[in-house]
């Protein structure tokens, strides 16, 4: 079993390789699609630089070489994770990105946990108490937050909870100048995390609530639930032990698929809350016209999605043992 699982994980990762490769190719051609001189584009804000500087960039990126040689050296660099140089930050892109990865991972994990657990809870309640006031309220909440733009709900949170009530800080990840250590530092980060994580989960809570409700209603109507009832099991046991476990599966699948979309959402949320992760870095690179950095972020976030999708697939085989590891290809 464990050997099969290990082999499956390996298979799953290999299957992601062509996608990573395709992203590299797309990135390579995107920068050359930009109107104007590629050297100018890569120079970003430093574009006002001297002709000598531009010449140096051309040589450095091999822009004076034929296209296929450019492509070859580009691939060679990517293979050792050399994503080029950010002229704005005067640093290697890969270093900059890795520095910011942790904050984004923290934000996304928090949002994921909040949205999946809240979505499952609300969806299950709406299904169990079908056609009651509470289920209608949950449905209305889900429909409205499904239509709410992420950046707007973030700003509304800031207006209400930071500016008027003063409960949470408006931006950043730590209190600047406080120099907390140990538990105080962790609590400080948590305090800063609350609003961005809630804002980012808003849309997904709605999504998972809708999905969970539908899935739960379907499961509750199935024969094995009737069997459990006929056996004389109590309502609570039926819901928790039988229905919930089965109904959760579509939500988990969807949560895996949504990692990619959530990364996009975190660009917006991080820009709103000044949360110093990949998204804020992308936002800053937009303003600095630091396109090489932006492409590096695009590349890394795509890899993140490939890896998470693989991880989710593996988790799925653990949660649902019915899925045979070998036949998993068809479900991917």
């Amino acid at each position, binding site marked *: 079993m464990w050997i099969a699982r290990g082999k499956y994980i390996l298979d799953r990762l290999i299957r992601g390789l062509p996608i990573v490769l395709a992203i590299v190719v797309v990135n390579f051609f995107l920068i050359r699609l930009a109107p104007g001189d590629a050297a100018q584009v890569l120079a970003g804000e430093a574009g006002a630089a001297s002709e000598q500087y531009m010449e140096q960039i051309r040589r450095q990126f091999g822009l004076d070489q034929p296209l296929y040689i450019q492509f070859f050296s580009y691939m060679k660099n990517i293979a050792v994770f050399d994503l080029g140089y950010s002229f704005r930050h005067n640093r290697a892109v890969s270093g900059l990105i890795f520095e910011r990865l942790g904050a984004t991972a923290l934000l996304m994990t928090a949002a994921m946990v909040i949205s999946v657990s809240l979505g499952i809870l609300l969806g299950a309640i709406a299904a169990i108490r079908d056609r009651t006031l509470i289920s209608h309220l949950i449905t209305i909440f889900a429909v409205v937050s499904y239509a709410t733009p992420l*950046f707007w709900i973030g700003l509304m949170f800031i207006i209400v909870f930071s500016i008027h009530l003063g409960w949470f800080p408006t931006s950043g990840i730590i209190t600047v100048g406080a120099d907390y250590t140990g538990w105080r530092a962790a609590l400080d980060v948590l305090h800063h995390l609350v609003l961005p994580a809630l804002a980012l989960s808003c849309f997904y809570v709605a999504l998972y609530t809708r999905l969970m409700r539908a899935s739960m209603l379907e499961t509750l109507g199935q024969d094995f639930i009737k069997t459990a009832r006929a056996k004389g099991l109590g309502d609570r046991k039926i819901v928790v032990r039988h229905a919930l476990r089965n109904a959760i599966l579509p939500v988990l699948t969807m949560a895996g698929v949504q990692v990619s979309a959530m990364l996009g959402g975190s660009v*917006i949320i991080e820009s709103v809350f000044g949360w110093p992760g990949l998204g804020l870095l992308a936002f800053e690179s937009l303003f600095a016209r630091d396109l090489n950095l932006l492409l590096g972020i695009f590349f890394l976030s795509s890899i993140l999605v490939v890896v998470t999708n693989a991880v989710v697939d593996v988790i799925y085989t653990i949660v649902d043992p019915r899925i045979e590891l070998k036949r998993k290809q068809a479900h991917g």
Partner: protein
Amino acid sequence: MADAAPRRPSIIGRLLRSPSGACGMLLLTGVVALAVAAPWLYPDGPFEMVGAPFSPPLEEFPLGTDMLGRDIAAGIAYGARISLLVGAVATLFIVVLGTVIGGTAGYYGGRIDSAVMRITEFFQTIPTFIGAIVIVAIMGPTLPNVIGAIAIVSWAPLARLVRAEVIAVKNREFTAACLALGMSDLRIMLVQILPNVLSTIVVAGSLMVATAILFESGLSFLGLGDPNVMTWGFMIGAGRAAIRTAWWMVTLPGLAVLLTVLAINLVGDALNEALNPRLKR
């Protein structure tokens, strides 16, 4: 369902029958009317400085002014034009791309199908919003580029949906009969298969309009909107600087996005129930 009676009400009639569908239609009609009427309501355009800056709602102007003294209401009215335009045109591209690509893959199968599936897998893996940001940042923030970027990153799910539907219809007997009669592939696709998958495309497309509007507002919020047109996302992005003193500058345009997207989603859901009554729960 009960609709199987001989005289079936029109689609609009069935849409209006569900309360949420009727609500959505009402809201959507309002937004469309506002967009159409914008040049008559505010002939000076959304960029005209008409009053004192930082004027709160219900004083000099019903929705107040922004930090340059521009009328928020005018901005919202003109923003509606851009949002609806982007939503409609991007969706048109998405539907055409998704239907042609997904339909071809589903109908012919084999190597074409697996190649198309690989490509859609790519587009479904990349973080689409970041992809759109990259495209607009590189190609330049113009309205056509924004629309193009949204369409490029969003067609894949629709292609998959159309493909699955086409495969289901293709294996039905009437398609085989047409083939036996010597009908050309194109004719079978257009006359026999397309009408059968149309309702799926219409429902998915209508929900796509809402997603495209959210995408556009997000892009222009980040400063990637066309600077020559007023958009809701731009208004919110600009109002952020005054968030401590002037709540209405970010709140009101955001409400416009919310209500528009909500309206389209409600109509889309009602359309789904009207066109695919079997799916109704």
